[in-house]
């Protein structure tokens, strides 16, 4: 009895899986391609770590519909970007724009790199000054030879 019940439940669960709507097929592949290219560069605001192209959130689907509409109206990529930014802010763009508030963001890695190289050079210079090349005295050379000999015998 239990098994039959389990089977029935499973069948029901499968039923709901099948009942899901098929995703609407692209009417116009060119429009769809451009829409995906644009929406891949945008963040879905509902699930923030997903792109607008990948997200299954309701809002993302609406926004993709909106983008399709804008593409069909013949809007340029820049205009479409502006459409999104004017509503949701710069946060929707995965590639931050170069504006005064993002200068540090864009320049930061290079500033750090230059600072690191400068620190390295300064350190190396200081070290080479600390370890001066001094010619071996005759006594030192004798000791070194003796030590090497000793090592060779072992």
């Amino acid at each position, binding site marked *: 009895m239990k098994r039959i019940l389990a089977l029935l439940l499973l069948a029901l669960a499968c039923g709901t899986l099948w009942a899901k709507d098929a995703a609407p097929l692209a009417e116009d592949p060119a429009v769809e391609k451009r829409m995906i290219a644009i929406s891949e560069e945008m963040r879905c605001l509902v699930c923030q770590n997903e792109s607008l192209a990948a997200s299954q959130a309701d809002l993302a689907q609406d*926004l993709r519909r909106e983008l399709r509409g804008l593409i069909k109206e013949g809007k340029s990529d820049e205009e479409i970007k502006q459409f999104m930014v004017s509503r949701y802010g710069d946060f929707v763009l995965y590639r931050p724009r170069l504006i005064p508030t993002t200068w540090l963001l864009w320049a930061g890695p290079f500033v750090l790199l230059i600072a690191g190289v400068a620190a390295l050079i300064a350190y190396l210079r200081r070290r080479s000054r600390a370890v001066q090349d001094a010619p071996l005295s005759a006594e030192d050379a004798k000791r070194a030879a003796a030590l090497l000999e000793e090592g060779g015998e072992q």
Partner: protein
Amino acid sequence: MKAKFLIPLALFFVLVGFLAVGLNRDPREVPSPLVGKPAPMFRVPELAEPGKTFSPEDMKGQVWLLNVWASWCVSCREEHPLLVEFSRQQAAPLIGLDYKDKREDGMSVLARAGNPYGVVAFDGDGRVGIDYGVYGVPETYIIDKAGVIRYKQIGPITTEALQKKILPLIEELKKS
């Protein structure tokens, strides 16, 4: 010479400071670019009477609130009693925007929990919501006499937000 060893420690504390601030911020709150800009225009049918329409134009000259809600939104239910109380105080007209909802569902919520709204506009396909940059209902906009959005509350209105932010701002905007 000794101070040199304190540099990494200082850097560590700076880093901890940044992380502490970052962790205490709500990543869901994305600052709206619409604050300080004119409220986007629209004209949509009302929820209860599809024959009548609502547009922000109708509210020119008044300080008003636009509350975006839906019957399927759980946080809206949480917020609802506060909205009912707010509408009793009559600080400012409260307009609802039923977002991506079914008419019957929206109306039955209002019938059950009370209707705090002066007018409820109906945005069935979510187009108005997109123009207002809605991404997580409930969201509430305070719009001034000139039709400029002055504040956006993302997520449910809390008693604290109402007392500290919303009501004082309404008073201030009413005076100007």
